[in-house]
């Protein structure tokens, strides 16, 4: 791995954000709207639900963590799409940069884009709703690692689709996370799902992450085995995502879609 090249590619996306105030605004706007919406819903449930009684911020914390996952995945996809939209694809793929360096650069830069959007929203939630994700304590770091890895995996799978099918796959980029959200048990316990869906849901790291988040906030206890399980599942998916990306890259070379890929 050449870190100078990874830095160069990251810099390309940071310049893009820094050069445009509307882009920064766009990054911040959606997470903030989400926090406001779920903040009020959360407040209502807290006042009117037995399950959420005395557990201020469970839904809002879930919304923040879900948004983190969503932003990570979308950031990864967006950076890849930017290369297609700007017709820079050929230049990028003829530069002496390894495919794993491209993946590393997109993965590392996605966290910056994600944090630019999410940190202001998280800060707003503290005075406005009295909710801070920091209440999760040290396990928060591990939950975020699991979420981030899974978000990047979804990004890798969508970009693999872009390599395979071209820009027409773009719509899937936006829809990918909504497809998995019902199975992720973000706002409700897994018991709500029918039995057969529970089996599928347990194969996703999201269920373990959000169940553990609820466990920490409601029961005030931490089950590190659950956290370890969620990260392990995320790592397996991440490796799978990288393999699919490589397959798509070699497939694109065979089909010749790396030339002239543009809008």
């Amino acid at each position, binding site marked *: 791995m050449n870190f100078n090249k990874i830095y160069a590619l990251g810099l390309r996306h940071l310049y893009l954000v820094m050069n445009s105030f509307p882009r920064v605004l766009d990054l911040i706007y959606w997470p903030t709207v989400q926090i406001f919406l779920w903040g009020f819903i959360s407040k209502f449930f807290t006042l009117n639900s037995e399950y959420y009684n005395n557990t201020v911020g469970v839904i809002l914390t879930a919304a923040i963590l879900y948004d983190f996952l969503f932003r990570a995945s979308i950031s990864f996809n967006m950076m890849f799409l930017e290369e297609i939209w*700007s017709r820079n694809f050929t*230049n990028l*793929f003829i530069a002496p940069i390894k495919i794993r360096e491209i993946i590393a650069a997109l993965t590392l830069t996605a966290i910056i884009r994600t944090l630019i959007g999410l940190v202001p929203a998280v800060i707003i939630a503290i005075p406005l709703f009295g909710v801070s994700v920091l209440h999760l304590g040290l396990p928060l770091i591990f939950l975020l690692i699991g979420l981030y890895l899974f978000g990047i995996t979804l990004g890798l799978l969508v970009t693999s689709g872009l390599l395979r099918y071209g820009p027409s796959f773009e719509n899937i980029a936006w829809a990918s996370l909504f497809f998995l959200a019902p199975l992720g048990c973000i706002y409700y316990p897994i018991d709500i799902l029918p039995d057969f869906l529970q089996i599928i849901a347990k194969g996703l790291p999201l269920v373990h992450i959000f169940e553990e988040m609820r466990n920490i906030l409601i029961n005030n206890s931490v089950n590190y085995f659950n956290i370890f399980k969620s990260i392990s599942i995320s790592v397996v998916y991440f490796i799978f995502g990288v393999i699919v990306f490589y397959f798509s890259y070699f497939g694109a*070379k065979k089909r*010749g879609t790396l030339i002239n890929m543009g809008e």
Partner: protein
Amino acid sequence: MFIEIKNLSKIYNKYLAVDKINFHLEKNKTIGLLGPNGCGKTTTIGMMLGLVTPSSGEILIENKNLNSFGRDEILKRFNFASPYVELPKKLTVRQNLEIYGRLYGIKDLKKRINEISNDLEIKEFFERKTGELSSGQKNRVSLAKSLINKPEILLLDEPTASLDPDIGDFIRSYIQEYKSKNKVTVLLASHNMNEVERLCDSIIMMRRGKIIDKGTCNNLIEKHGRNNLEETFLKLARSKDEF
């Protein structure tokens, strides 16, 4: 022999884009790749750049198969410019050159950017976003990017397409001047016959994925009994024979 293309073919589904072509590039020479649209020029360039996997045949660089090189090892010796491939539009010219300079691992990057910007006269719009530039300015920036690593092998796909005669001449003169000062092997795909006559040491003519003739400009003009390269091109492009 610097680069040798041996029996190179590419089939997309059932469409034969490049059909067992053979040619070679001598070190520090310029070869023109000519042919009507869709004749396989871009696919050939794509295969040389490692963007397209050949269906059969091989590309040898100094007698070593292209596939035996590491991706970054071989690509740092190449570069490419085409008006159909752009640089990130929302980044300034300086930012784009900086990023590509870093990707190509250029030492003393500031000096190199300064040098090439002065040579190509792009300093005046250095801080403007690339997407806001005129075609001529964009082509000069694209050429600057393609020369940032002082490539040993430079592939140019219609570098002066859609430019006014003044800018077109500027770019052709610059390529000529650059070649006289630097060691670089150039493969030039172009539809501008004056450009080809001016820049190329020899020519490869392609049609429907095949090489139909090759030689120096004068040889080909003489061989086909025409007055200039344009007429020769038309004869070869319209003929059904192989020469």
